[in-house]
């Protein structure tokens, strides 16, 4: 057991190394170096798997694939640009920006799934929040009211989903997909109807928090000195939700309803009320993430602008084993890959093909790899996906 753990540990380290060597200050230019190291990482992972340490072994294999692909991609980028891309502090700040909407949605999904309702509709609720957030900010002239309106709209859609999945006991996957389509159609329709060809106007966007006392500190100041308000809210939510979930009666009730609703009801917990509250909260959180996208990040709205982020958040949730810190870590990982892809993309042109377009696929491929690599080890709440019938 101890040896397998050592193998798995070195596999994970090698996976990180595979990405590391291709980045400054080493900046190896041949793709074969990261490939070789990544193969080593995967090999060590397989040895660990063989020896029976399935969890760490899989993690090592995933780290090898992850680090290897990042490393290979980095060798494609030209050297002078790598320095510009990979100011580490700027990259980490970008990671936090890209992770913010995922964090909101993943925490929302966590609440819903812990209460026993799969919320595939996160994507649609995000999109709703994004559109109504910017609409509200435009009409009221205030980002705070816009954010509020976005959150309320996402909550309303979630309420409809809750009624469908809890009261009518509709298949949660189908109901959730319905939410996604309705949100896509409705926001697209209203966007064209209200803003037409002009696109959304300039709006009062959610402000950044400038922490001037961090400025003199070299690295920390660059990463944390100038982050969006909602990024801090998202980061703050993670420990709060963790405490609520594991240290309060409310959290205990929520988890009980998600694990064994019949028993929960026997001791006097209202399953329906708990699930309604959790689903509506998940919609509001996802909408906050969407509103961050439209009025905190890009300051405009486009049809289907969430582009699968709701599903990535769902994957992060599973990757994080339905735990707040795990899910948050996965969100940061996905945020990092997106940030790296975006920043590499800006500076790369390799051969004929547009590498920057190809880079857009990276977050989705990595999500696929992550889901495939770790999912067997994660254990969902026992009652997730099954409607509850009162007796």
């Amino acid at each position, binding site marked *: 057991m101890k040896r397998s753990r050592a193998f798995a540990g070195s596999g994970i380290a090698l996976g990180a190394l595979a990405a590391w060597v291709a980045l400054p200050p080493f900046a190896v230019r041949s793709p074969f170096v990261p490939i070789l190291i990544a193969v080593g990482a995967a090999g060590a992972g397989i040895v660990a798997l063989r020896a029976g340490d399935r969890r760490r072994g899989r993690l090592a294999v995933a780290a090898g694939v992850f680090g290897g692909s990042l490393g290979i991609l980095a060798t494609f980028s030209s050297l002078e640009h790598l320095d510009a891309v990979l100011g580490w502090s700027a990259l980490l700040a970008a990671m936090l920006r890209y992770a913010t909407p995922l964090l909101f949605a993943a925490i929302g999904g966590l609440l819903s799934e812990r209460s026993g309702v799969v919320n595939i509709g996160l994507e649609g609720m995000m999109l709703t929040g994004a559109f109504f957030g910017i609409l509200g900010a435009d009409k009221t002239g205030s980002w705070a009211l816009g954010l509020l309106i976005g959150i309320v709209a996402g909550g309303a859609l979630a309420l409809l989903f809750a009624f469908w999945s809890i009261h009518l006991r509709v298949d949660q996957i189908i109901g959730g997909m319905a939410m996604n389509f309705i949100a896509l159609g409705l926001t697209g329709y209203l966007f*064209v109807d209200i803003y037409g060809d002009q696109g959304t106007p300039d709006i009062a966007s959610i402000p950044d928090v400038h922490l001037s006392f961090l400025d003199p500190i070299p690295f920390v100041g660059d990463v944390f000195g100038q982050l969006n308000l909602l990024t801090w809210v998202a980061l703050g939510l993670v420990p709060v939700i963790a405490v609520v979930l594991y240290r309060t009666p409310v959290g205990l009730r929520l988890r009980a309803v998600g694990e064994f609703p019949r028993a929960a009801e026997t001791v006097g917990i209202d399953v329906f009320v708990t699930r309604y509250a959790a689903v509506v909260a998940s919609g509001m959180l996802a909408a906050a993430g969407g509103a961050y996208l439209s009025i905190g990040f890009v300051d405009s709205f486009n049809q289907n602008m969430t582009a699968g982020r709701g599903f990535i958040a769902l994957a992060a949730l599973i990757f994080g084993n339905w735990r707040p810190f795990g899910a948050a870590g996965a969100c940061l990982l996905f945020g990092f890959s997106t940030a790296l892809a975006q920043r590499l993309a800006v500076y790369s042109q390799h051969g004929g093909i547009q590498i920057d377009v190809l880079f857009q*696929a990276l977050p989705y491929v990595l999500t696929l790899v992550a889901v495939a690599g770790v999912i067997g080890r994660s254990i969902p709440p026992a009652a997730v996906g099954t409607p509850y019938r009162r007796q």
Partner: protein
Amino acid sequence: MTGEDPTILGRYRLLQKAGGLAAPLLTAAMAFLVGGLVIIATTHKAPWGVYRGIFNGAGLNWVLPWISAADRTNAGYNLQQTLLVTTALILTGLAVSFAFRCGLFNIGGQGQYIVGSVFAVWIGSSLAGLQPAAHIVLAVVVATVAGAVWAGIAGLLRATVGAHEVITTIMLNWTAVWVASALLGQGGPLQGKGGADNPISSAVAEGAKLPVIWGDPLLQGLSIGIFFALVALVVYSLVTNRTTLGFGIRAVGKSNEAARYSGIDVARSTVIAMAISGAFAGLAGALDILGWQFRLSVGDVQASQIGFIGIAVALLGRNSAVGVGLAALLFGALVTGTSTRNLDPSVFRPDLASNLTILIQGLVVLFVGADVVVLVVLGRLRRRRA
């Protein structure tokens, strides 16, 4: 889906036996009704006029005996396009239906369709001078297999590590979109040689184009692709209901455990079900390319919704061959009737209408999921009549 409630299930079965059409029809009617309310609320136009504009834009007025000869010619063009879209929707609908039979929700029809299109345009636009029939068959087969492989990835992940197919197929969709965009875009290997800066492929060779059976080949006439789709409906029905393979797949869909106990290889059924689903969607991509699009652009890849609409087609068609065919016609008419080319802009803005299509599609999925609601409404209607 409505679950264990004996009374509701009992009534549902009765309803399906007595007149299985009632529930889907009412579902569609309710979706259009809510869509109409949105039209009234936002544009203050009478939804009836808008829907009639879509009806005419789809060329469905072709069947009306009283329209003038000029109108009929025009309606013919429109109807040909509707049937072309119907062809693709039948297949993307089957892509969802087949997986449903195995208890899998294939949301990846869009990606599988794109992969099929890319391979069809690749084979179709290269290998010029090949025997026409052989060229068509080769392009169709390669695209179909490519779709099957793309979906098979999700099936394999489901069968081996238990990754939920909803997440994996969505990720495969986006991967397909961006990889196809890179291949067709500036400097990509599939970008056409002629138009220097356009992110679009070369046209497929003349020999690889599907023969047109109704209308003008230059004006997107109806190709023989529709027969492929109709045959696929029959094959779907036969495979699911009359073969060992189909039985195994349905058994897995009903209960993994029971299927495993009776000796069915659940993992194998899962992979095969996803692969066959993907084959349908890949075929749809091939028929669209060889039948009327002839080229594939980055814009096409990023804007296409055909695979997604297949979800609503399958749900509304209740996974039966006839139902899928009819639902595909409905959505084919909606898509064509709301397109910029076909919808009279004085009636309704086409860019609004295309979003209305997505909304109606969402409402259909919403209401289809809730048989209970439909039944309650039906029951009230009956009581009122009595």
